[in-house]
């Protein structure tokens, strides 16, 4: 089959690799009909993610049709059309039973790598996102092996197009969870979203769906700001305005009740990329990567919430904790518990509350993916979100 393969730093290519096979009786094989490039994939491209190996198949946003199931798979049948969460969860451990699917105890075969860095615990595995997160082959391919097939994949029974449901696998739940974590009081709370990339866009629209009185989106890329503005958000271009002053003015001096930092390490992925990136930035004494986090803490209203949908992978410093303490802020963060959001968000799509395909700017075949990785990274041609057809 054809697959997008990590070939080393800044080298992503299309290669012919063996078709995946069932490795365990709880696996399924999916024929991928649509897949996407995520912002966090860019940091695999950069080669800053530890524990990538040449030849790894990339991709963690994908959907398709079940073509084979292991003998212990009960819920899925050949022919089912499914979206597959980017995180892999066992469904039976304590975190999974509590709905903390991304914190699964059991799905990462390489738990010791993450344990060495994160205080003796590891999260669950991820598709196509380094060996530290399990080393699972990804979904930017014609077929993919899906472990724990009765736990992750969610059947799509309506005739919604792929493009309307594909983002249920990652960026929609990720943006939604970021907004949900704010505990928005409908009709009262003002929410600011730093970063108008795909996750920021979904966070802003989710904040609206959850009843925010006003949503403010901060970025510097005109196309991204225009997309947020089209959804009815106020926008601030931080290259043209002093963000902190503009936010005070927009909120009567209170500051936004909740601030979502969808930049931080989202630009670095929701994987461990931040780890080495942060280290490099620290060596160069360049602190720009946490500017958004610093702004978030400084701008947030008293008693507010700072919600981090992106990832902070390593150590950061020069964080204004004094401001956070003085204002009594709450921090909410972590990898998305995708599984628990899919059904409710699918209902919202079916009800016509939101059509997630708004975020797509580029469509291409797998063969074009290496070029589009660069287009996306460099934000050329108005690129916000790329969807790939593995069979096109």
């Amino acid at each position, binding site marked *: 089959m054809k697959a997008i393969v990590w070939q080393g730093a800044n080298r992503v290519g299309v290669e012919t690799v063996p*078709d995946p096979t069932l*490795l365990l009786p709880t696996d399924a094989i999916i024929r991928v009909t649509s897949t996407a490039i995520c912002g966090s994939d860019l940091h695999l491209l950069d080669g800053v993610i530890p524990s990538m190996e040449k030849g790894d198949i990339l991709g963690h946003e994908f959907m398709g049709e079940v073509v084979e199931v292991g003998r212990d798979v009960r819920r899925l049948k050949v022919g089912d059309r499914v979206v597959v969460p980017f995180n892999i969860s066992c469904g039976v451990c304590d975190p999974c039973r509590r709905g903390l699917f991304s914190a699964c105890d*059991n799905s990462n075969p390489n738990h010791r790598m993450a344990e060495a860095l994160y205080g003796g615990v590891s999260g669950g595995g991820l598709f196509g996102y380094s060996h*530290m997160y399990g080393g699972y082959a990804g979904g930017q391919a014609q077929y993919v092996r899906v472990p724990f097939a009765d736990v992750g994949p969610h059947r799509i029974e309506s005739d919604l197009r792929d493009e309307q449901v594909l983002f249920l696998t990652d960026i929609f739940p990720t943006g939604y969870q970021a907004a949900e974590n704010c505990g928005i009081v409908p009709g009262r709370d003002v929410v600011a979203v730093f970063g108008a990339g795909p996750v920021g866009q979904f966070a802003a629209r989710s904040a609206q769906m959850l009843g925010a009185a006003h949503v403010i989106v901060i970025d510097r890329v005109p196309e991204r700001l225009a997309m947020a503005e089209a959804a009815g958000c106020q926008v601030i271009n931080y290259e043209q305005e002093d963000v902190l002053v503009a936010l005070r003015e927009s909120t009567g001096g209170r500051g936004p009740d909740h601030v979502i930092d969808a930049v931080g390490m989202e630009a670095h992925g929701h994987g461990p990329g931040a780890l080495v990136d*942060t*280290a490099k930035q620290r060596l160069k004494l360049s602190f720009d990567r946490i500017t958004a986090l610093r702004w978030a803490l*400084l701008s947030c209203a008293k008693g507010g919430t700072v919600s981090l949908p992106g990832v902070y992978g390593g150590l950061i410093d020069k964080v204004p904790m004094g401001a956070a303490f003085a204002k009594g802020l709450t921090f909410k963060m972590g990898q998305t518990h995708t599984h628990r959001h899919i059904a409710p968000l699918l209902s919202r799509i079916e009800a016509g509350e939101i059509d997630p395909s708004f975020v797509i700017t580029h469509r291409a075949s797998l063969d074009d993916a290496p070029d589009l990785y660069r287009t996306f990274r460099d934000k050329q041609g108005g690129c916000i979100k790329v969807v790939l057809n593995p069979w096109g």
Partner: protein
Amino acid sequence: MSEDRSTPPPEGSTTPTEPQTDAAGQLPALERSVMGSVGVALMGAGLRSARPIQKLVLGSVGAGLAAMAATGRNPLATALKIRQTPQGEVLVSDAVTIGKPADDLYRVWRDLAGLPRLMTHLKAVEALGGRRSRWTVEAPTGTVSWEADLTADEPGRRIAWAALPGAAVENHGEVLFRPAPGDRGTEVVVRLAYRPPGGSAGAIAARLFGEEPAQQLRDDLMRFKREQELGFAPTTEGQSSARAGGQA
């Protein structure tokens, strides 16, 4: 209130970036932050490296730097993760929570002959009748074996054992089974103590040659948890990739 007496920055200002020395006269903050970052980067590089030596060196140096950054103290003891009693015994312990009743887990451990399935460094355990058993492990120098006695056997709660005096590797250990709060199952705690041949130098040498009892115990406990909770171990062995042979 915090013990730090520096004044907070005025509202709206950016944070200061100049290095600071903390009151206790430990490493300056900036140096520590650089050290921490390099340390984490090296740990990452060490984990990623396919070559064992590089993995060890990068990993250890990285862990050392990160530890130094975190504690502001010398890293060597922490980096090698060797815990010792004043009597010169090496201690290894770890714990895991498993979603099963304590009685079930106790029964699996109490079957001494089955222990090598749980603890991979064990080659064999034979029950000799009564409280006595013979334990065999694979060592760099060949197999080593000794006799041990059960020193405690409390069904559903605790199993303890000790090697008879004069064993090649003096050791003792225990496994505790404690109900976890709420409906989370059972906390399994394993504590092992042994006197390495060659004292602490021997322990360091063993560590450098790739014997990592703490990691081995951790891996064993995680394998046990997965066997009990899932009935199998998750794997990527044999999956598709673009590496030679097309397998992962």
